[in-house]
């Protein structure tokens, strides 16, 4: 039952960390201490960390050989998504700037 224990712990850690990160993000907005841009930056960073936590603790994606395929898939997807999203934002904001 050692494994079961280990998995339970993994979920517990994931849950606690996520909870903390969520609270931190909301708190950063509720009681802002830095400027708007910086706050948004903080929120984004906390969000990305929380995603990583959940991928690790809930979805069990890790550097282990056994989940290598999954990891590769996720990293490749992240690359494509980053290309698409950043491209979209850069292009549309540039267009906006040049059109008004």
């Amino acid at each position: 039952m050692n494994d079961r224990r280990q998995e339970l712990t993994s979920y517990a850690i994931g849950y606690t960390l996520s909870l903390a990160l969520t609270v931190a993000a909301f708190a950063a907005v509720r009681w802002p201490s830095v400027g708007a841009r910086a706050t948004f930056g903080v929120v984004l960073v906390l969000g990305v960390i929380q995603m990583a936590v959940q991928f690790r603790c809930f979805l069990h994606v890790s550097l282990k050989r056994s989940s290598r395929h999954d990891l590769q898939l996720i990293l490749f997807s992240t690359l494509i998504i980053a290309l698409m999203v950043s491209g979209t934002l850069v292009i549309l904001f540039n267009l906006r700037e040049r059109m008004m």
Partner: protein
Amino acid sequence: MSEPELAHAGLNLGPSAELTRDGAENAIFGFWIFLMSDAVIFALLFATYGTMVAGTAGGPTPASEFKLLPAFVETLLLLTSSATFGRASIAMKYAEPRRTLFGWLGATLGLGLTFLALEANDYATMVAHGAVPSRSGFLSAFYALTGLHGLHVAVACFWLVVMVGQVLAYGLDARVKINLLRLGLFWHLLDIVWIAIFSVVYLQGAIR
């Protein structure tokens, strides 16, 4: 056991007549690919939202519409449901009593439905003071993004009910286990999408 079982919690299917271990792994991998494809859809809706958030056309703005508290509660609900689902997959994997499994699945379902109810309530409040999707590009993007997520959660809840039916009908045979695993992945991913939603939509909107 130091073996691949940990790759996906519960991918310990034991001997089975119908599906080999390989088959199970393929099934999960295929589902992973689907999830990534789905993630692209969400990503593009986020990008679209980002470009439209200022397109309020003189109507309601993020600042006027988004309340932190409901968003926070919804976040807690989804996060907790992810944890309860995780607990359910452990119950499945380690062949805990059927009652335990159902208990955790039921809790997950309850949390999911509550989340949906709260979200519907948010929508209703917004609609009540004229913040409808046809009002502006910003609201269109908001409803499409959160609505698609909500739709996913609704589908996941429905699927959960179907899975409970299958457990009742067949017990935990290989097919049921695989499908529960897939549902688990789906559920966790919805939570991850929600992280992006509360950061990019609600928190960004509430930043002053």
